C-alpha cells in the first residue's frame, strides 16, 4: 500500500481566483514598496486601492469560495496545530493548520496596513489617502507612522513565509509553489478532492469588492 510504486493522483487544489489573488499580492507588495521608495505617491495610492479590492475579494472568497479558500475549512484551533506539529495529523488538502496561521497573519496585517494607508498623508500633507479628509492633520501623520511600521512587519512575515516554503521543499520534499501556480497537486494518499466554487460566484465577488474599493477610493462619496 502507498509508497513509490503507487501512481500519484493529481487533484485540483487551488482555484484560479485564489491563485490570482496570491500572485497579484506578490506583485502589488513589490510595486507598492517601489512606488513609495521612488516618491510616486499618486501611483502608490492607486495601487493601494487595487490592493484593497483584492483583499476584500479574498475575504469574500474565504466565506463562500472553493473549500480550500474558506476560512472555516482551514483555520484550526491550537489543538489541531499542536497535533500537526507532532506529525499526527492526516494529510492536509490545502492549507495545513500551521500554514493557516501564516495566511491569517498576512491577510490581517495587509488589511490593517491598507486601512492605515487610507488615512495616511505624505510628510508634506500634499498627497493623502482617500479617508484622510475625515481625520486631523495629526491623526493622518500618526497613521503614516503605523503605515510605515506595519510594512516592515509584513516584510518580516513574508520572509518567514518564504523560509517555510523552502523548508517544505528541501526538508519535507513537498513543493508548495507549483500547486500555487498550476492549481493542481499530486497526492500519494487517496484524498477527497476540494469542492470548487463557480465562476458566477467569483464574478459576484469581483463586482462587490471592486465596487466597495471604488467607493472607498472616492472618499465614501458618490
Amino acid at each position, binding site marked *: 500500500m502507498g509508497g513509490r510504486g503507487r501512481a500519484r493522483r493529481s487533484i485540483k487544489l487551488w482555484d484560479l481566483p485564489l491563485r490570482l489573488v496570491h500572485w497579484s499580492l506578490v506583485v502589488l507588495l513589490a510595486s507598492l514598496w517601489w512606488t513609495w521608495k521612488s*516618491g510616486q505617491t499618486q501611483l502608490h495610492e492607486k495601487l493601494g486601492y487595487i490592493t484593497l479590492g483584492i483583499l476584500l475579494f479574498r475575504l469574500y472568497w474565504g466565506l463562500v469560495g472553493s473549500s480550500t479558500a474558506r476560512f472555516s475549512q482551514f483555520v484550526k484551533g491550537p489543538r489541531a496545530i499542536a497535533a500537526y506539529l507532532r506529525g499526527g495529523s492526516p494529510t492536509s488538502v490545502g492549507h495545513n493548520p500551521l500554514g493557516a496561521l501564516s495566511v491569517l497573519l498576512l491577510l490581517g496585517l495587509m488589511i490593517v496596513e491598507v486601512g492605515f494607508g487610507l488615512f495616511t*498623508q505624505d510628510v508634506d*500633507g*500634499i498627497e*493623502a489617502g482617500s479617508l*484622510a479628509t475625515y481625520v486631523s492633520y495629526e491623526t493622518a501623520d500618526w497613521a503614516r507612522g503605523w503605515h510605515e511600521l506595519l510594512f516592515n512587519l509584513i516584510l518580516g512575515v513574508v520572509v518567514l513565509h518564504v523560509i517555510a516554503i523552502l523548508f517544505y521543499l528541501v526538508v519535507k520534499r513537498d513543493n508548495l509553489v507549483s500547486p500555487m501556480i498550476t492549481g493542481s497537486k499530486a497526492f500519494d494518499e487517496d484524498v477527497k478532492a476540494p469542492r470548487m466554487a463557480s465562476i458566477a460566484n467569483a464574478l459576484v465577488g469581483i463586482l462587490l469588492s471592486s465596487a466597495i474599493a471604488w467607493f472607498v477610493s472616492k472618499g465614501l462619496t458618490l
Partner: protein
Amino acid sequence: MRKAVIVLGSLALSGVAFGQLSAAARDPATVQKIVDARVAHYKQIGKANKAIRDELGQSSPNLATIQTNASVIEALAKQIPSWFPKNTGQQPGVKSEALPVIWEQVPTFKQRAAGLAGAAHQTAAVAASGNLDATKAAANNIGAACKACHDTFREKK
C-alpha cells in the same frame, strides 16, 4: 520705570549680539531646538494645506476657509528663510532633514520660499474672487511649490 526699560532693552540687545556671536558654536541641544521649532512651523503649513485640500474635496467647498488658510501659508512662507540660521543643519547630535545645500544656495532657497508665498497669495486672491476652478488650480501650485523646494533642499527618505 524708564531705567528699567533701558536695562531690559540692553539685556535684550546683548542677548541678540551673543546669539550671533555664538552662532558658529551652538551646542547640539540648542540646534535641535531650532530644528524642532522649524519642523513645527512646517507642520503648520502642512496643516493649513490639508485644510485647503479637504475643503476642495467637499461637494461645495467653502472658499472663505480656503482663503484664510492660504493666507496662513503665505505668512508662514515669508518667514521660511528666518527659520534657517547658519549652522543649524545636519551635524553630530542633531536630527534634521535640512540639507547643507540650503546654506550653499541661499538665493535659490529664498526664491523657492518666495515661490510658495506667491502660490499661497494667488490662491487666497482667487478664492476671494469666488472662482472655484481657478482656486483649485492655484491650490495645486501650493503643493507643487512645496515639492519644488523639498526635492532640492530636504533629505530624501
